[in-house]
């Protein structure tokens, strides 16, 4: 365990060095990658480990984002407290949701969470204190002065997001490697047998939902930070879908994979944009080529490396005996 901690600290340090050496756009994208990595790990835990398919992690992110913004705007206090509240409130929300979800399986769960992903952000329109369509501001403030003049807002976002990502990945990976992770995999594989082995299947599923939601909530707050606001338009169905996509690209049950998945989520649109501009000309082409490229990549990767690129490498080493 000590080894892992050292590894994470080293990783953090390397990331900070990188952050100093690239331009602002990349720094911002770095913050986005960190945000997606957190969000994807919530899916890895929920779907890859406990086997519950959720299309609604975007909604869980919304809960975290709003919790953070409401905390910061109404209770004040330090910024970290807003993030803690995001985790706490969305964990609570996840526990409630999980209690209902534990009774559902496969597509039923997918359908319910899909409905949630569509419906939940709209609640913001119903209550004034949630700010309606324009949303609420979420301002983590400028970087501390002592970091110097040159230290930009985006680098500050990057620092915060990276720190939170490393922290949450560290914790998540510990949980997944503990008996909790093992029990979830057992439930995914054969829930009846797990139950007969004394596993409280319902409780464990709810726990998975709770933790996953807490992580997603954190990601939601980080997202809110990078766009400086929470608004229904930030937590759309498209976000939920993007997350599932990223999770598959990451290889649903591989935690290190989330970084790769996050990288791709941020990179694909940009690459597609570049290609579209290169071949561009026609207006429809400009508008729809990026989508086309993303979809084709997605389809190809799902067909050829459904369990993530990691699997292909692994299976080269030890073939199923």
């Amino acid at each position, binding site marked *: 365990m000590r080894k892992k901690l050292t590894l994470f600290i080293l990783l953090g340090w390397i990331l900070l060095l990188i952050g100093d050496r690239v*331009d602002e*756009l990349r720094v911002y994208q770095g913050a986005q990658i960190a945000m997606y990595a957190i969000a994807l790990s919530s899916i890895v835990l929920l779907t890859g480990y406990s086997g519950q398919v959720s299309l609604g992690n975007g909604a869980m992110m919304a809960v975290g984002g709003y919790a953070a913004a409401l905390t910061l705007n109404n209770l004040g206090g330090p910024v970290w407290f807003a993030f803690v509240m995001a985790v706490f409130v969305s964990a609570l929300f996840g526990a409630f949701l999980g209690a209902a979800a534990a009774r559902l399986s496969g597509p039923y769960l997918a359908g319910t969470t899909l409905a949630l992903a569509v419906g939940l952000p709209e609640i913001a329109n119903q209550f004034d204190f949630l700010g309606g369509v*324009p949303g609420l501001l979420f301002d983590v403030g400028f970087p501390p002065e002592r970091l110097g003049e040159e230290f930009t*807002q985006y680098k500050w976002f990057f620092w915060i997001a990276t720190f939170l990502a490393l922290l949450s990945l560290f914790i998540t990976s510990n949980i997944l490697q503990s008996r909790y992770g093992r029990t979830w995999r057992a439930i995914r594989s054969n829930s009846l047998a797990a139950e007969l082995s004394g596993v409280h299947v319902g409780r464990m599923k709810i726990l998975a939902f709770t933790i996953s939601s807490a992580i997603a909530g954190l990601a939601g707050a980080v997202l809110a930070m*990078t*766009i*400086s*606001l929470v608004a229904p*338009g930030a937590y759309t169905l498209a976000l939920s879908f993007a997350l599932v996509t990223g999770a598959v690209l990451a290889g649903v049950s591989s935690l290190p994979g989330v970084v790769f998945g996050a990288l791709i989520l941020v990179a694909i649109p940009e690459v597609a944009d570049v290609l579209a501009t290169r071949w561009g000309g026609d207006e429809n082409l*400009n508008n729809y080529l990026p989508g086309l490229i993303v979809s084709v990549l997605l389809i190809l990767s799902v067909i050829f490396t459904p369990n993530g690129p990691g699997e292909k490498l692994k299976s080269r080493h030890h073939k199923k005996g």
Partner: protein
Amino acid sequence: HAETGVSSSEIKLGITLPLTGAASPGYNKIGNAMNAYFKYVNDNGGVNGRKITLIQKNDEYSPQLSIAKTNELVLKDKVFALVGPLGTANYTSVHKSVGIAKRGVPSLFLNTGFSGFGNKKTYPTSFMILPSYAMEAKIMAKFLKENYAGKKLGIVYQNDEFGIDGLGAFKAAGTKFDVSVAYTSGTQSAATAQTWVSQLAAGGAQVVVFFGVTSATAPLLAVAAAAKYAPQWILGSVGADPLTLRALGVPLAVLNGALTPAGNPSPNDTSDEYVKQFQEINTKYNTGTAFDDYVLQGMNIGLMTVQALRAAGSNPTRKGLISAMENKGSTFASVAYSPLGYSKTSNVGHTGYYMAVMDANGDRKPFGGKVTLYTTDSGSGPVVVSTFKRPAMPAKGLPNN
């Protein structure tokens, strides 16, 4: 030293707007219209010898994408200024996250009427162009009081910035609606419209104000016509474009007699020198695109942009552009009838509307036969009838300020 986005031969500008997605109809024409105008100017020597390049980025109306795309515009493409960014939530978050003000990026002619952007302290480098939704509502309120006192009033409004701005202004003006129907952006469809209509009809509304987007106007009017419910319609400026309505399958006949506040002349009014010139440019540089309110709006933003760039001098800087807007902006030629409010202390653009009546072809004529222009502010100021006379269109549509 040279300013970001300005070289000896080129000035780079950027815009984010929904080119695809549910919110895109109509708006997706604005960027191309601006571009057409810029090409026209470029073919006629550009601005002080520099060609204008406009980079359009599709944000699908999502704030996240707006930020990501604006980041690309500002940090990667290194544009000189933003022109005509679209959407209230989008621009709110872009402004904060990208740090538009902090970076000193000029952001001209926002395509949103949210009155909050009129706060010069928060938005020192941003400039509005549209009259705010609050202004629009205040003007409608006065008009209702003068022309429809005693009638039963209904309103259908989009439950967002229109609501905050518009409804608030109606309330302040003392307008009471007998039936009020709110809808959430994205829910509009024939099915939902049926419920709006039955609520309005059940409440016996005789005059119905509509404050929403065109994709909601369409089912509302279509369903009402089908149900033979025909109140006096007063359609907000945002959702009343007849061409878009027709594309959405609304028989234009139902528009006959509907009222709408308008800032610009009708896009069919070829007797107007602006419209005539813009139409010519559109035919040549934007071939195949029907000339409607959105195209007119895009061209006009182009026209004003060129004036602003010229006003910034032969070696334009961002600071220079902003002070040019503050000092000379209010004198710019613009197709809209109302005065422009730019000054050292205000970034508000147009400040008023006239009421127009639509006919069975979707064309609009000033209510009462001639333009009666009302002007006001977004706050508690009165609504007054203005005698302002807009500047003439520069010769051939090429600014020479």
